[in-house]
């Protein structure tokens, strides 16, 4: 693989990321400026009545609220560029620490759901594709179409009712048991609390991969080489294993990587339903509590997250497929 091509690819990607981040920060900056939230009031909180107009003016001057918008934006962008996202008003600690902390919890949740939904969706898609037109295909297709109209949080609520309230198998919320020090929480406890939200996310995430895989498999089975393989006597599982699987697995994996945005959105909801302390819950709390620094931090972080997913998908498409690598198809 030529080194020049790789470096060109990377430079292009980084330039794209930079332009996206800049655009998103300008837009979100303007939107936040437009919002009815008063920065001084949200910073001081309940003690607002004790702040007189003079003190207020001093604060405004100190923070540069009277400066023109562009100056404000550049001073904010400059500190972001240096890695300073400000201090979260709700958690009273640097935003970057809160995000790092929360992201680890979310990563466990999203990672689990990502793998579950990918595998399960792929299997469903393969079954539907192999049995196309039959009863089972119709059921799977119907299930997938139904899923696309199902609110994620409703699925979460149903699972909560069934497994936590009625059966009592799972805890009602939080990432760790209540009343135990964080250091004493075992891995098993964590998984126990993680499972239900992860299942919620996986149930919803299945549809896309399953439908896509089904289409691909049908395409593959209509091809010349499958006809040839069939003519030379291959059939059933061997036929699928030798000729079907390889051709449909890469598109499915790529699709999974491009679904990072939906995964993140689903995590916001699942975390809210199960009060799981992840990044999604953080952005909701930040939004409701007027914690602008944290809110903007999570917004920018989510851009990065989605971008990484898309870049991996691009890379897979470009270089993992041996045919694309050799430049046989463009």
């Amino acid at each position, binding site marked *: 693989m030529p080194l020049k091509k790789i470096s060109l690819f990377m430079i292009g990607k980084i330039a794209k990321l930079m332009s996206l981040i800049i655009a998103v920060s300008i837009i979100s900056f303007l939107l936040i400026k437009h*919002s009815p939230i008063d920065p001084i009031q949200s910073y001081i909180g309940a003690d607002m009545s004790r702040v007189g107009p003079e003190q207020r003016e001093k604060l405004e001057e100190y923070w540069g609220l009277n400066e023109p918008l562009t100056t404000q934006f550049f001073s904010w962008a400059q500190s972001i560029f240096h890695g300073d996202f400000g201090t979260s008003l709700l958690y009273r600690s640097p935003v970057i620490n809160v995000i790092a902390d929360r992201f680890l919890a979310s990563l466990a949740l999203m990672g689990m759901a990502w793998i579950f939904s990918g595998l399960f969706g792929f299997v469903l898609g393969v079954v539907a594709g192999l049995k*196309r037109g039959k009863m089972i295909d119709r059921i799977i297709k119907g299930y997938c179409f139904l899923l696309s109209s*199902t609110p994620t949080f*409703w699925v979460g*609520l149903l699972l909560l009712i069934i497994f936590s309230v009625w059966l009592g198998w799972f805890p009602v919320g939080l990432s760790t048991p209540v009343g135990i020090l964080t250091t004493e929480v075992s891995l098993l406890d964590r998984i126990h609390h993680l499972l239900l939200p992860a299942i919620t996310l996986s149930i919803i995430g299945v549809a896309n991969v399953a439908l896509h895989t089904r289409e691909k498999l049908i395409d593959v089975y209509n091809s010349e080489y499958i006809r040839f393989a069939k003519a030379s006597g291959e059939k059933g599982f061997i036929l699928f294993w030798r000729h079907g699987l390889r051709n449909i697995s890469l598109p499915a994996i790529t699709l999974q990587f491009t679904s990072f945005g939906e995964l993140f959105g689903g995590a916001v909801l699942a975390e809210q339903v199960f009060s799981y302390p992840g990044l999604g819950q953080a952005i909701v709390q930040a939004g409701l509590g007027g914690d602008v620094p944290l809110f903007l931090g999570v917004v920018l972080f*989510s851009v990065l997250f989605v971008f990484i997913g*898309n870049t991996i998908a691009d890379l897979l498409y470009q270089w993992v497929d041996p045919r694309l690598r050799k430049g046989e198809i463009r």
Partner: protein
Amino acid sequence: MNRELVITRKKWSLRKQTLALILLSVIILFIMVTSGFFVDAKKLDVHLENRNIAPSLSNLFGTDWLGRDMLARTLKGLTLSFSVGILAAFSSTVIAVFLSFLASLNQLLDRMVTWCIDLFLSLPHIVTLLLIAFAFGGGMKAVVIGLALTHWPSLTRVLRAELLQIKNTPYIQISRSLGKSSWWIAIHHYLPLLAPQIIVGFILMFPHAILHEATITFLGFGLSPEEPAIGIILSESMKYLSTGMWWLAFFPGLSLLVMISIFDLLGQNVRKFVSPYQFKSWQV
């Protein structure tokens, strides 16, 4: 005689089936939406003596912790969701049509529009919605603006691709050399050609808009708690789930699901109806 009998007994053609499905979904949706207007206002009042009743014949969906009838609240909520959805989907469609026409004007504008699409797709949809709803301070206005501003990218992409093909066809070229303005061509040539796509895109945008309205309301950024939106009902129900009042969440969510999937069905069938050839290629 015998032959005629065979023909009349034959199954309906695909076109007839599709038309029947479209009609059926329109009727069901109409009933669902209008029944919200006929709900007895008394049922929404607080009746503390009837609170926490499980679903029964007199209260099909049960009652909540204040004795309000859940069926009445759900129907009101569906009507509200529908009106928010129609406003948002309509504005989004207008934006999509406008941007795709803009993109067809010249290379630079095309680049800009594609860049905007990329930009909106680079953020998780919910995060964009939260951002806009946050900036406009919540409430009905914020929800509608947020939904309208975030649902156009996919339709714009479809319309833009379609226009790229049409743009270079001979009759458009002739029309241009006859001195017709871009605006005239857009109204007289592009719009009629794109009409099916636009209508289908509009209907299929609906379920998304309604779903996202419920989502953002559920998260607390959307409609205010006094309004009987499905999202509000569901987020309120969370406090009472651990006491075993499952009907508070089950029926409203299910009704929303039914409404959204019927819309989806309607969109799919309208698409099948207006472009049968395209449909045939991806159906088995």
